[in-house]
């Protein structure tokens, strides 16, 4: 009788897997999220039965989906209480899921795409890589990490000359940042191909600022996925707004809501100078 809506409802946890010491994957049954998500979108997840502390859902990007199983996955690093509770979930538990939410990456205009990421924000890039490959695109993936082994799924991407891992210590992979690795290993190659190329980035703000200033001269399309503290995830609380360079298409303000206008933005929309690093 008091049914939930398809978009916000209880969902069953199918599996929780510790992929690396820092990364967990959780598989959740949801016909709606599985059918409707596109790479870059996120869901708000809360424990059930409902508690008031933690109060708000936690935004997590969709990592991938299995439409045959009506399920989707998230990749997360336990950061605080909300994500720790999620890491302790067991198959059969239920969680509250609201989503999919926000905008996604648009790779339709490109034949070849390069994905650059680092930190906990890399989940949407894996989803993007999978969907773009399925659509026949050439996909380069450059991920920054402390060590290559600390990245999840390196196995499923290597050996592939289009996957690069950049590390601080250079123990394996490229020695340096993901942005440096992109310029040293990928940029020349894709430029010489003379095909429509798009860049997609997700990760810490300083990394994205470096990427934005390094690519500004290149005149190349760059879409970024941003994070912000969120309460509602659907554009109503106005808690997640960030500074923008261009007026909002509807309201005219020089701001954007990360949850509803993003989390994926064209990099030229963001006022990077005024965007806080955290």
């Amino acid at each position, binding site marked *: *009788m*008091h049914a*939930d*809506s398809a*978009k*916000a*409802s209880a969902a069953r946890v199918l599996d929780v897997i510790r992929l690396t010491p820092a990364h967990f994957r959780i598989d959740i049954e949801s016909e709606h999220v599985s059918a409707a998500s596109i790479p870059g979108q996120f869901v708000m997840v*809360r424990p059930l039965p*409902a508690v*008031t*502390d*933690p*109060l*708000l*859902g936690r935004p997590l990007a969709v990592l991938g989906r299995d439409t045959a199983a009506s399920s989707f996955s998230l990749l997360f690093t336990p950061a605080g209480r909300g994500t720790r509770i999620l890491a302790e979930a067991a198959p059969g538990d239920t969680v*509250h899921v*609201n989503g999919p939410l926000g905008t996604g990456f648009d790779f339709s205009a490109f034949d070849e795409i390069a994905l650059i990421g680092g930190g906990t924000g890399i989940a949407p890039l894996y989803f993007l890589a999978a969907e773009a490959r399925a659509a026949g695109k050439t996909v380069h993936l450059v991920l920054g990490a402390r060590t290559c082994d600390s990245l999840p799924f390196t196995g499923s991407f290597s050996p592939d000359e289009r996957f690069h891992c950049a590390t601080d210590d250079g123990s394996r992979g490229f020695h340096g940042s993901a942005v440096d690795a992109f310029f040293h290993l990928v940029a020349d190659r894709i430029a010489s191909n003379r095909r429509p190329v798009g860049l997609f980035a997700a990760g810490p703000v300083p990394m994205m600022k470096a990427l934005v200033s390094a690519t500004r001269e290149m005149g190349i399309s760059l879409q970024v996925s941003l994070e*912000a*503290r*969120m*309460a*509602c*995830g*659907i*554009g*109503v*609380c*106005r*808690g*997640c*707004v*960030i500074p923008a360079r261009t007026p909002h298409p*509807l*309201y*005219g*303000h*020089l*701001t954007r809501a990360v949850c*509803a206008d993003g989390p994926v933005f064209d990099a030229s929309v963001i006022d990077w100078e005024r965007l*806080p690093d955290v």
Partner: protein
Amino acid sequence: MTASGTFGFGIEFMEYGDISALGAVVTKSITLEPRAGNEPPRIYETPSGMLNSIGLENPGLEFFKEKILPQVVSAGATMVVNIAGESPDEYGEIAGELSADDGIAALEVNAGCPNVDRGGMTFGRDPGMLADLVAAVCASTELPIIAKLTPNVADIVPLVEAAGRAGASAVTVMNTLLGMSVDVRKRVPHIKRGKAGLSGPAIRPVAVRMAFEAAQTGVPVVGAGGISDLDSAMQFFLVGARAVEVGTWNFADPAFIFRLPGLISDFLEQQGETNLGAYIGSLKSG
């Protein structure tokens, strides 16, 4: 009803339920001119609650009237427009632009926003100023007026009485409780402006107490503050509120508010009540 600032303009929730089935959709506060709001960070989660300092970000009266209102009205929602300003004249000017012809059922006057430099909470703290504000709005419109009060006062009763005498049909108790939280390592406030409004279940007992006190005056009360389930909604009715608003919990579960009317009916049946009116204010002494 929905609490202002937690339900957008209603349109955003149409994927979660039928907004025409709600008691009313109360909009985000509308100001005369568009407002971009405060610098981030604007929100921070606290135990069973959250702090916000949004700064009344909204697209302004003209945009609201032309682009948003018709959409919500055509969705069949009972519309209560929440208004905010910097002076009684400004509130009056906004009220004058909004009428029943536009499909609006009532105005809620935000006399208690803690997150702006001018206007906001100052009106809601002094009975005389509040009365002037309510009177100015009532003089500009035929619509019923609900005065939304701030809890950041020593005694709410004189304010409720002042609003009632000045012509308010009801009072909403309450807006957010002024709070603050700081990062002990970085040594900065968690919210850019420092102080911010606390909402959510953490403030519920304060809100129930204030709704109880307000209801004793005889002025109709709309209860708000920390409603997150059936029990918490019924607490406000039991202490005398005639209606309730769900706020922060819309963020946690955007479908909850659509289930609430059904939950209330089931509860009343279990309690052997034929209607909500008989339950309202039926609190027995300890």
